[in-house]
Structures are given as structure tokens and as C-alpha cells.
């Protein structure tokens, strides 16, 4: 995952310069320090070898604008590690994705700072209008408003690690090679998001294809699908359950995007899915057991009928 995160981090440094690199390094260093000190204070056995602290420290700043003060980003990292990861069981047991929780916390605390994205190449000086905000304002996107190529290469205002879609597609290809099971989460999530975007467009004139493209490329959608939805602790193990989990998160995400308070709500959708999914999985298992039992009973009765005949 860290290798996959390296690609968007490089693009963030390319577009926003040393400010982005400084923010990422500060967050990663503080994540490691917080992990060590938190584990010491909470008397938890610390295991830095799983690199989850570094992942949280790198993922949270990549979801933020480059102009955000470092203390806010570090607060998000601290929340993810000290309030979610360590007290709730650690890397392989925490019921929520720590990076999503950290981002959600700072987006509730400082929404203005978190959702004001500067133009690329201005060093954070000039604030721009992100795609997600334009979509949330209803019919502000028209054909030819934005160049599609700029969107794909990330030359638009947005989160510094999530704006460049081509690089994220490269990360997805890497994931396909390294962890092909996890790609099911991503594809089901993006597929349902795309379907809902095409069915319920939020752009002027209701152009479905453009709506699909804008929705998928705006905000943190692809980034969250790749890095938050595939978290090993919260993601289901079986393939069809992975697909269901991704689809459910997508539905929640698109509903929150349409009716929610914030322009970017994929992290909240992930957290809600984390909370709901264990119960759904329990119901699924129960239903499957009952189905299996009925099938066995039916087969036994069939055999008896055959033997009687």
C-alpha cells in the first residue's frame, strides 16, 4: 500500500512543490512518534513493522489540500492512531479505517480549511473551485467548462494526492498485480458510483456520460476506493462479500454526496460501512446457513423419495 501511495505522493510534490513533501514527511514522522508513545501509554504491544502508522501518516495529508496548516493534518493523524487504531485493537482488529476516521474528524472540526483547494502550481496562494464543490452546487458544470485532460492529469484544484486520476489508475494496476482480490472492492465501488452518477446526474443538462466522468474524478472517490476501502482489517474476505461491501459503500457515498452537508463525504461513507457491515455479514452468514440446511433437507427428502420409488 505504501508503494501504491508513493505514486500520488510524487505527483503531489510535482504539482505543489516542497510544501507537499514537507506536509507528508511531518505527518509520517508524527504518526510514528504517536504510535510509539500511544502504545507505551496504553500499554499495547507496538508493532511498527506492519507500516500502518506510516500509511496513516502518508494517506491523510494526501487527502488534504496543500495549503492546510500542518497542525490540522497532524491532528487528523493523531485522531486516527490514538482514538481509533490503538484503543480499538490495532492494525488487524480496528473496526474502522483509521485514516478515514482521522480525515472525518478534521473535516468536521475545520471544514473551511479542509475543503478549500488551491490551484496547482500557485503554492497554495490562489484558491480554486474543486470539482466536488462544483458538483455539490448543482448545475454549475456545463460541457466544456473544464478540460478533461486536465482532470485526468490532476491539473485542477483538489486534494493533493487524489486529483491525478491517471496516477491512481496506475496504482490500481499495481494493486491488480499484487492483491487481485482487493480490486473487487474497488471495482464494485466504482461501478455502483458510476451507475448512480449516470442515473442521477448533478450537472447542467443532465449529460450522463459527463456526469459519470465528473463524479468519478471529483474529490477522493478513486483514492478512497483504492486505499481506504481495501483496508485488510475492515474489508470482508470472500469475493462476493467484497463486492457487496463496495457496492454498499458506494450507495452511501453517493447519497451523502447528494444530500450530505459536506462536498466530499466518501470517508464518512467508509466509516458508516465499517459500522454497518459486520451486522450485515452476520445476517448473510445466518441466511446462508439456513439456505444450506434447507438444501440438505430437500436433497435428503429427494433421496428418500427415490429410494421409496
Amino acid at each position, binding site marked *: 500500500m505504501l508503494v501504491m501511495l508513493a505514486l500520488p505522493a510524487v505527483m503531489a510534490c510535482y504539482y505543489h512543490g516542497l510544501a507537499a513533501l514537507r506536509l507528508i514527511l511531518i505527518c509520517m514522522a508524527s504518526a510514528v512518534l504517536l504510535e510509539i508513545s500511544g502504545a507505551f501509554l496504553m500499554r499495547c504491544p507496538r508493532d511498527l513493522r506492519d507500516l500502518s502508522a506510516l500509511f496513516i501518516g502518508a494517506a491523510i495529508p494526501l487527502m488534504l489540500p496543500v495549503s492546510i496548516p500542518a497542525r490540522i493534518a497532524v491532528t487528523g493523524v493523531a485522531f486516527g492512531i490514538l482514538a481509533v487504531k490503538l484503543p480499538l*485493537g490495532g*492494525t488487524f482488529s480496528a473496526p474502522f479505517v483509521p485514516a478515514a476516521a482521522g480525515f472525518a474528524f478534521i473535516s*468536521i*472540526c475545520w471544514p473551511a480549511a479542509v475543503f478549500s483547494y488551491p490551484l496547482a502550481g500557485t503554492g497554495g496562494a490562489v484558491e480554486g473551485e474543486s470539482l466536488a464543490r462544483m458538483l455539490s452546487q448543482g448545475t454549475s458544470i456545463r460541457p466544456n467548462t473544464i478540460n478533461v485532460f486536465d482532470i485526468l492529469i490532476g491539473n485542477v484544484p483538489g486534494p493533493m494526492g487524489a486529483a491525478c486520476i491517471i496516477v491512481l489508475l496506475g496504482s490500481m494496476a499495481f494493486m491488480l498485480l499484487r492483491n487481485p482480490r482487493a480490486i473487487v472492492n474497488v471495482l464494485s465501488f466504482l461501478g455502483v458510483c458510476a451507475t448512480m452518477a449516470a442515473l442521477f446526474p448533478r450537472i447542467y443538462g443532465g449529460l450522463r456520460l459527463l456526469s459519470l466522468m465528473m463524479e468519478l474524478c471529483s474529490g477522493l472517490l478513486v483514492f478512497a476506493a483504492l486505499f481506504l476501502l481495501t483496508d485488510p482489517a475492515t474489508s470482508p474476505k470472500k469475493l462476493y462479500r467484497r463486492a457487496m461491501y463496495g457496492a454498499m459503500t458506494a450507495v452511501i457515498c453517493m447519497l451523502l454526496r447528494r444530500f450530505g452537508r459536506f462536498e466530499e463525504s466518501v470517508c464518512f461513507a467508509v466509516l458508516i460501512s465499517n459500522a454497518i457491515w459486520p451486522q450485515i455479514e452476520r445476517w448473510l452468514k445466518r441466511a446462508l446457513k439456513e439456505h444450506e440446511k434447507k438444501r440438505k433437507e430437500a436433497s435428503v427428502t429427494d433421496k428418500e423419495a427415490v429410494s421409496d420409488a
Partner: protein
Amino acid sequence: MPEQTKQRKELSPREIFLNGVILTNPLLVQVVGLCVAVTASSTLKAALLLSAVLSASLLLCEAAASALLKSAVQFIRVATYMAIGLSVACPVIFFLSGRGSPLLVNTGIYLPLLAANSLVALRCEKFAIKADVPRSLLDALANALGASIVLISSGLARELLGAGTLYGREIFGEAPLPAMQMPFGGFLVLGFSAVTLKLFISIFMPDHSAEMPFRIKKTNRSQMKKDKDNDRDQELRGKGQEADNLSAREPAAAKPVQERPVPVPSTPEQPKPALPVQKEPVHEPVPKKPKKKKEISDAQSGKNRPKQFVSEFYGTMSEDDLFEMPDITFEQKDPDEAFAQLLAELTEKND
């Protein structure tokens, strides 16, 4: 179990106080009346007001429940608690609305709702109606203190972090964490307070730490495996200890009885005749038992089986041993009569 319930009923005043304030803190351990703590106590002023009203209604309700309502029906008791709660809350509400205080807006619906607080009903029904008035008052005081400490500390922390003020006075120029003013912040503060309380109890009151209802998970897979192994070991040890305890409860006279394989059959006149059967060791290896049973059954096969049995019975023990046995028949009756009765029963059974 009856001894435990008896002990619970007869808690000392110190234990009642400690339970109410720390060990079974109403908000952090019993998790009762959370909505007030989470939503309404976002400032210190609101927390002080809510804790004062809660304490007054708790004290009055528990006193009334203990003194007057022990013989009343449950729904009448609960209605009475609500009436008492309203009699405390209404004057405060009228006073604040008359002065046009913003506190009434801050606390919202939760101040009138304190009249029907679950904490009041719980403590009254669980403790006050079973205890005398002084104990009930002490319990009310302890629980009110426990809840008030949590409410006030939560209000203080949330106001300081969420608004950057303390009792309305500005401390920080900018609010450090504005989200702490939301109910979400209340949950966070309560969660961390519960962890702090758990740590406090585990450090300063280690005897009671096992009674706490929640445990913090371990963090990695290897540790989880170790925990599972430890749990299994503890279960096995627990079983072993139970067996040891059972055998330890037996009197010292059990040893010679264990050596004798022949059981004493029960008679209707003997209320505790199965002493040798009770003294059968729990941890004794299982496969030996069928062999003994086989021997006995072989020995008992035949027409003169009762005689063989009796001869074996007497052959394995001396006369002193026989009279040392805590057999009730030998204490109550003549030994010859008891023996004749035993013999008659055996013959009946075997026939």
C-alpha cells in the same frame, strides 16, 4: 449465590460510596443517562445546572422510594419518581425562563427530560426500595456525585476545546477543536473518560479491576493468538482448580473411604447415606472405573450375591473403621438393626 446476594445487600457505607462514584459510575460504567452528558453538557454552565438538577431529583426520589414507596406497585413508584423529578425541574425552568437565561436554550429539551431520567428510575428500583433511608441517601449522593463529576469535567473539556472559553470567559483566541461542541465530541470525551477511569481502577484499585465490564483489546495477531492460548490454559486450569476445590472440600476422612471400592447403598431412612459416593474423586482417571464396576458385577453375579457383597464389605474394613464412618444409621440406631435393614434392602434390590 445466596451468600453473594446477601453480601450485596449488606454493602458497607464506604463500598456504597465507592461504587457510586467510581466502580459503578452511572455514566462511565453503567452507561445510564448518556443523552444528557453527550448533547446538553457542552459548556461548563450547562453541565453545572444539569448536575445540580440531577442530584436534587436523585436524592429526593431515592429518599421517597426508600421511605414511602416500598409497598407501592411498580408503575405507581415510577410515576412518583417522575412527579418528584418534575417538581425539581419545573421551578428551575421557570426561574431561568423568567430571567431570559441563554442556559435554557443551551440545555434544550434535556433539562425537562431530567424529570424522567433513567438513572433516577434505575437507582430507585435497584437500590432504594430494598434499602433503608440512610443507605438510600448515601447511594443517591454517591451516584449524583459520580454523574456530576463526569458531567462537569466533560462540560469543562468540551467548552475549553470546542469554544476556547471557560465559564464564558475567553481562554484561547481560536477554538482548538470546534467539533467538541457537537454530540460527537461528547461521545469522544466520555469514551476517553471511561478509559481513564479504567486505568485509574487498574492502577489504584487492582482488586476491583476484574469487575469492570469492558476490556481493551490487544493489538496484533501474535498477541491475539497468545491471548487465545492463555484463555485456553486458564480454562483448563480453572477446571483443574474446580476439581481440586471439590476434593479440598471433602473432609480428611475421605481418603480411607476412597481406598475402599465398595459403595454403601442408600436407604430411605438415611438422609445422607451416599457419603462414599460423594467422596468419589473428580480427578481420578476415568478408565479405571469400568474395571471396578466389572469386578463388582462379577462378584455380585450368583445366587448368594448379597452374602458375598456383605462379606466383601466387612472384609475390606476393620470394625473401628466401620464405626468411625459418619453413617447416620450407626449414630441413630443400633448397628445390628441398621445392618439387618441394609441387608434386607440389598436383597430386595438384587432380587
